[in-house]
């Protein structure tokens, strides 16, 4: 049964790290609008500047590849290790090791920005806005994201009522296991709603003098985001209902873990499809791009964190990966960043504490059949 835990961790970690590497370190940097979170420039591809540019991009790619390979190899090795407290902690730390992929990315980003200064590339300070499309380009149909969450809410209420004995069912699983599982899934589903709305309200991109092209481009991008969040919400709600049913009739951990493997695989597949669709949209509109994008490279700390006090927007499109991020200079952005940092650092510290005090070993012993 413990091999299922390993499969879950493998399914979550390996595709994620490969995806992060592929999105962050392009194979053909000359063909991309952004390289390591810095806007491409003709000066990057000529003379001495070109050589320096190639060296920076190669070095970052190598760094990213080494970390990616290390995480993948480590995950494969861990598949052959027995599940105990130490290996469980190692798996969890491998999840956090995913963040290491951004180290060569951030380093490369800083070096490219320095190269820009060296080559005398100054930012134009020009922004384009299409007033025809302001506030009219949306792709998210709210009922489609509310519906799965309503279903998840019904499932959670049912779980609470079953656990409290209001609904007279003999539950096979432990007391309140049903409620805890349902609330966790409901929480994930609910948190996706504001993120989906924020992504649907991101600024419309202006790539052409033709408003129709701009509207279609922005709509296509927002549609991929909307579809991703809707698909994830449905997967989440259906999984919650399936767990509710399974836990009523069986307390088999194998069934629960097998469900988790399936759930992780579905979520991964949704993300991969989303990324591929987004890349197809970018390729489709590449030939229609005639206007220079705003040069705000200096506002991107390490190419990861957007800090622009002169920009009143809260949410902007990410430079690494897929989706959006917040403007850290915005008051709400500061709060979101602080909360995220506290959760991530707190989780790492807590897990290391659990591992050091042998609590993982106890947990594995208790769960052994």
């Amino acid at each position, binding site marked *: 049964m413990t091999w299922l835990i390993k499969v879950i961790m493998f399914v979550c970690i390996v595709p994620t790290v490969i995806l992060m590497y592929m999105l962050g370190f392009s194979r053909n940097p000359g063909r991309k609008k952004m390289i390591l979170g810095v806007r491409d420039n003709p000066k990057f591809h000529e003379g001495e500047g070109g050589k320096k540019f190639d060296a920076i991009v190669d070095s970052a790619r190598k760094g990213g590849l080494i970390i990616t390979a290390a995480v993948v190899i480590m995950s494969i090795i861990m598949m052959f290790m027995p599940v105990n407290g130490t290996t469980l902690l190692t798996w969890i730390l491998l999840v956090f090791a995913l963040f290491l992929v951004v180290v060569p990315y951030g380093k490369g980003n800083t070096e490219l920005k320095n190269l820009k200064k060296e080559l005398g590339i100054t930012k*134009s*300070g*020009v*922004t*384009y*806005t*299409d*007033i*025809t499309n*302001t*506030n009219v380009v949306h792709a998210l149909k709210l009922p489609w994201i509310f519906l799965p969450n309503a279903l998840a809410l019904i499932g959670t209420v049912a779980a609470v009522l079953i656990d409290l004995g209001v609904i007279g069912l003999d539950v096979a699983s432990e007391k309140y296991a049903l409620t805890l599982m349902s609330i966790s899934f409901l929480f994930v589903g609910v948190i996706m709603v504001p993120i989906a709305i924020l992504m649907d309200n991101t*600024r*419309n991109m*202006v790539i052409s*003098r033709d*408003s129709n092209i*701009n509207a279609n481009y922005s709509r296509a991008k927002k549609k991929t985001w909307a579809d991703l969040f809707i698909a994830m919400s449905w997967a989440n709600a259906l999984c919650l209902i399936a767990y509710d049913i399974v836990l009523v009739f069986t307390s088999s951990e194998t069934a629960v873990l097998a469900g988790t493997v399936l759930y992780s695989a579905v979520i991964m597949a949704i993300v991969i499809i989303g990324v591929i669709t987004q890349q197809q949209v970018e390729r489709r509109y590449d030939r229609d791009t005639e*206007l220079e994008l705003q040069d705000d490279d200096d506002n991107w700390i390490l190419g990861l964190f957007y800090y*622009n006090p*002169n*920009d*009143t*927007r809260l949410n902007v499109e990410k430079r690494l990966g897929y989706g959006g991020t917040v403007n850290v200079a915005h008051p709400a952005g500061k709060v979101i960043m602080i909360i995220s940092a506290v959760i991530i650092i707190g989780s790492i510290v807590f897990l290391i504490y659990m591992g050091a005090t042998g609590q993982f070993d106890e947990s594995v012993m208790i769960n052994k059949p």
Partner: protein
Amino acid sequence: MIIRIDEYSDVPIYMQIRNQIVMGISSGELKGGEQLPTVRSLALEIGINTMTVSKTYQLLKQEGYIMTDRKNGARVRDNIAQSGVISEENKTELRRIVSESRLSGVSKETLKKLIDEFY
């Protein structure tokens, strides 16, 4: 219609927006009765303060290019009052452009062609 904002320009942002909306109305890109974005949504789209956009709309309203009301927001006026005279401010601006053109060796014919093109 595309608005181009240059943050390094000497012209204030509210004036840059105002000038381009006026040019849009004149060229026909913005038609009479056409709805303009709300102050809030335009400010969010450009990433500037709502006060800046509000100032632009107030100026455009004062000059008679747009009309605003609580229910419908801002719209381009159907019938813009035509006084038939060039304002003193614009005359001074035109004089500056003509002077600079003459000093740069631009012929009167080229300037006239440009006026014909833009008119």
